[in-house]
């Protein structure tokens, strides 16, 4: 009885706030279907690590330091960067690069939509974050959870928890964040622009060579991105080679689900009340929002500029699909196109820009590591 009372005495109001926050994440995952595979374990983990003297995390009992299971998982999976990299194999196996290979110029939109990363880097630096933390926060704009975790951990950012929460929350909120920005920057006429099929057919050999050559090129031009791009492309090679279908399916389903589950639970180590409930957390969430808005704006404006010089006009909304949130962003753009013109089918083009964004976000992450790693 005494020990129960002793534990209850240690309970702080801030820990109760974290329970409520954990509950909110679980609610959003179940009721709103917002990235449930990640937000649910994170929400549960947030409750678990904020129990007074929780045995799930490392605690000091007198002179004895007892290592918690979640800290051990963190050291093994996130501190070593293994979880995000393994997740990339699964993501690579899920991606079909065909829409991009039939219209390679969509790569440019993937590049343009990384503007949010570099814009947020400057903004975070202006707001007083140390440069490595600013760089980690900026990578929320990659719209790519594993890249955010990889970079933030690599740069030893003390804000890993808020960064991951922001990255995954805004990815889930793409259908809410992107449309107003796109409408603000485009006219109705522009949103009705139809895009022709290039008529290019892609051979199986191209699909096999693509992941190998991308790894070579990106690895040479941005060496720090080699691990990220390499694991992503290895997953894609599993998918496209045609002789490892069982492995490809395992990577897409079992591996990706398992790692996502462990990642969500393990990241919650960074969600202790002391680390999370700080004014800077709100600032990071705000900067994450700015990063997503700037990504969208960067892609749309680039497409509009491109239209000034090209004969075959591009629907500027495609530029917004250049972020890495796959396939939500492509779906949002297709739906917006259909709202303006029922006969306008933008899905393939938007999907191409979206997978280009996947590659570009990893490259941008690698460049950030080159600068500050």
């Amino acid at each position, binding site marked *: 009885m005494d020990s129960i009372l002793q534990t209850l005495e240690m309970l702080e109001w801030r820990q109760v706030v974290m329970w409520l926050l954990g509950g909110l994440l679980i609610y959003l995952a179940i009721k709103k279907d917002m990235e449930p595979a990640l937000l649910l374990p994170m929400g549960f983990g947030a409750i678990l690590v904020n129990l007074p003297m929780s045995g799930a995390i490392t605690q000091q009992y007198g002179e004895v330091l007892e290592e918690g299971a979640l800290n051990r998982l963190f050291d093994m999976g996130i501190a070593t960067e293994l979880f995000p990299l393994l997740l990339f194999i699964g993501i690579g196996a899920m991606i079909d690069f065909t829409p991009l290979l039939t219209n*390679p110029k969509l790569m440019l939109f993937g590049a343009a939509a*990384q503007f949010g990363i*570099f814009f947020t*880097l*400057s903004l975070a*630096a202006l707001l007083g974050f140390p*440069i490595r933390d600013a760089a980690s926060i900026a990578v929320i704009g990659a719209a790519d959870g594993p890249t955010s975790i990889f970079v933030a951990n690599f740069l030893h950012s003390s804000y890993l928890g808020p960064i991951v929460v922001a990255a995954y929350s805004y990815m889930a909120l793409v259908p809410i964040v992107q449309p107003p920005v796109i409408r603000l920057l485009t006219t109705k006429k522009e949103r009705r622009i139809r895009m022709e099929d290039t008529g290019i057919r892609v051979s199986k050999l191209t699909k096999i060579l693509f992941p190998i050559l991308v790894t070579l*090129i*990106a690895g040479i031009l941005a060496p720090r991105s080699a691990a990220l791009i390499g694991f992503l492309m290895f997953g894609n090679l599993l998918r496209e080679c045609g002789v490892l279908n069982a492995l490809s399916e395992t990577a897409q389903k079992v591996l990706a689900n398992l790692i996502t589950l462990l990642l969500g639970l393990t990241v919650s180590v960074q969600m202790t009340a002391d680390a999370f409930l700080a004014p800077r957390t709100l600032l990071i969430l705000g900067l994450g929002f700015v990063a997503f808005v700037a990504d969208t704006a960067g892609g749309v404006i680039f497409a509009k500029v491109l239209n000034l010089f090209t004969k075959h006009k591009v629907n500027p909304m495609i530029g917004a699909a250049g972020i890495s949130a796959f396939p939500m962003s492509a779906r949002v753009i297709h739906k917006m196109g259909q709202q303006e013109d029922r006969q306008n089918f933008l899905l393939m083009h938007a999907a191409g820009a979206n997978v280009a964004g996947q590659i570009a976000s990893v490259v941008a992450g690698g460049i950030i590591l080159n*600068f500050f790693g």
Partner: protein
Amino acid sequence: MTLNVELFLETLTYMWEGMLGVFAVMLALILLCAVLNRLCKPRGDRKDKT
């Protein structure tokens, strides 16, 4: 909160160089796709040409 203008100005160079770097890699990949699409055409397409 104090604004760190000095660091902000320093990061403008990173912004410029970073975007340039991403575009350089993606342009290289466009070139790669163009070469691959030209050299590795699907069988049906090759027959049409001949």
